[in-house]
């Protein structure tokens, strides 16, 4: 057994329910004992398209929440945006059908050992892992505030859930159709200034993560972000999902976001190099 993804397993999971919620599908998978080893920030890789599929790669989805059921064991909730052919296929699977999953994958969010003030920021389906995270943080005595943003109201996932799981919830949409008009990053500078947050947990588009990162640079606020890079394998064997990350000596390495992430310390990510050819390695 390895030290990488050491709780991961490949299993057949049954779809317990599949509901449309706004622009997304909330999908509940029966995963038995695997539930006990899933942590907020982990993701699942799902085979799509069925037996004679031309889609040969798995699709990655953040584990939104874990419920520990009774007889049938635990369940895993996903929030899936029907984007391309793979996610649309998944959203079209009826209750009762089986899917082949590999989970839990990747690094989870780091949970503080003592109570802190945490701000959770989600963009679009990036809110997925935040609900589960909020529960864990609250159980540790943390104060949890939440900001959710999207282009439009239908892309804010389950605002009521957000309300339940966080102490405060603020919603931002770019078209103003829900919550305040504007970007989800808008209130962050003043929150930081007020000294009311210790840690930011973020999940959403790379541009959002980077913007938050810019705001926390030079402050004491720790920023853990869950990145999203195109992944072919999700388990560390293909090297497609890399991100430039600065080491302690300042040199940049291309780390695999599937196994060294998706949760990363945002201050170590070389945001300006993302998507660029990194400078040649110097020794």
């Amino acid at each position, binding site marked *: 057994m390895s030290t990488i*993804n050491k709780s991961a397993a490949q299993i057949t999971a049954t779809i317990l329910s599949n509901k449309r919620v706004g622009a997304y599908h909330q999908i509940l998978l029966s995963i038995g004992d695997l539930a006990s080893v899933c942590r907020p920030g982990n993701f699942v890789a799902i085979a799509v398209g069925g037996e004679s599929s*031309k889609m040969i790669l798995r699709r990655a989805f953040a584990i939104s929440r874990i419920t520990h059921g009774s007889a049938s064991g635990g369940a895993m909730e996903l929030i899936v945006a029907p984007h391309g052919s793979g996610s649309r296929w998944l959203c079209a699977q009826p209750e009762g059908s089986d899917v082949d999953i590999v989970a839990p994958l990747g690094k989870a969010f780091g949970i503080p050992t003592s109570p802190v003030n945490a701000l959770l920021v989600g963009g679009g389906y990036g809110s997925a892992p935040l609900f589960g995270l909020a529960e864990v943080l609250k159980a540790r005595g943390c104060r949890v505030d939440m900001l959710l943003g999207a282009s439009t109201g239908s892309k804010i996932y389950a605002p009521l859930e957000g309300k339940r799981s966080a102490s405060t919830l603020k919603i931002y949409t770019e078209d103003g159709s829900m919550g305040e008009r504007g970007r989800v990053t808008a209130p962050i500078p003043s929150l930081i200034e007020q000294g009311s947050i210790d840690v930011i947990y973020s999940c959403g588009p790379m541009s959002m993560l980077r913007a938050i990162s810019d705001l926390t640079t030079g402050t004491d606020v720790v920023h853990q972000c869950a990145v999203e890079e195109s992944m072919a394998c999700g*388990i560390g064997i293909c*090297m497609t*999902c890399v991100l430039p990350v600065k080491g302690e000596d300042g040199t940049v390495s291309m780390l695999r976001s599937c196994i060294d992430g998706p949760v990363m310390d945002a201050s170590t990510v070389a945001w300006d190099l993302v998507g*660029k*050819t990194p400078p040649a*390695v110097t*020794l």
Partner: protein
Amino acid sequence: MNTEYDGFDYSTSLAGASFPSPVFTASGCASSGKELAQFFDLSDIGAVVTKSVMNKPRHGRSTPRMAETPSGMLNSIGLQGPGIDHFLANDVPWLLSKGSRVIVSIAGETIDEYSVLARKIRPVQGISAIEVNISCPNVENRGMVFACQTDTAARAIDGVRKIIGGEIPIIAKLTPDVTDITSIASSVVDAGADALALINTVLGMVINLDTMRPHLGGKTGGLSGPAIRPVAVRAIYQVHSAMPNVPILGMGGVASGRDALELILAGASGISVGTASFGDPTAIPRIQRELHALLVARGFTSLRQAIGYAHRASEEGAQ
């Protein structure tokens, strides 16, 4: 060695190196093994072929590095890796400690770099074979693919052979993106390759319809997966037909035992499984089981009987 194939001789050899089963990882599709160890025991499969390593650490190409295509994918990793020194100090000992058979894949930007790499590998104990990747399409200059020309292909292999002597079998990995793969194959065999790895990825490209630009950071990429399997079968068949005594490590789109059998009948002595592991982390042990069952069902009592059988069957055949 594996004993679960009772009665059936599943072992294979590539120019003197022996393996208990013919199913291996493919270079670049298993990193250095650690990541797959969570899903199966690395000593249970034929061998781990490690990701092509260069002399110096290397970042590779910019992202995005992959695009899914119908029954395939493009990658443009660009040989990201830790460099040979780190690799030999860390990855090889770890693999050997797990009881895995190790085939080290090397890649160079210059002919000289191959010799430098060979010099560093030569003293290392326990390596089953060296795979010399002279065909990676993801280097800066397409003209850099040594396996595109008989002379550069031969010189790269010659450099390695001179240093390795006879100690470790040398497997030359070729690209199918050439006018005549048999002439490249014979030139590297003449230069000292003991075996051939067929095939590397096929050069391809995807345009992103949102940006309307080439999708991959490196613009072009290598096509792999089931889409290219007929090309792999053809290349293996052609080369085995021209040089029946040169062992072939076959690869390209193998995702099931039936696919592996196809390549073996065409002439492969071993099978590397690459892209299939991305979609299924346990693909390799599954393929190993499936292939075994298919061979037994066809009345073979050893893997060896099946290697290149499609050539013999056609001589014996009715037609």
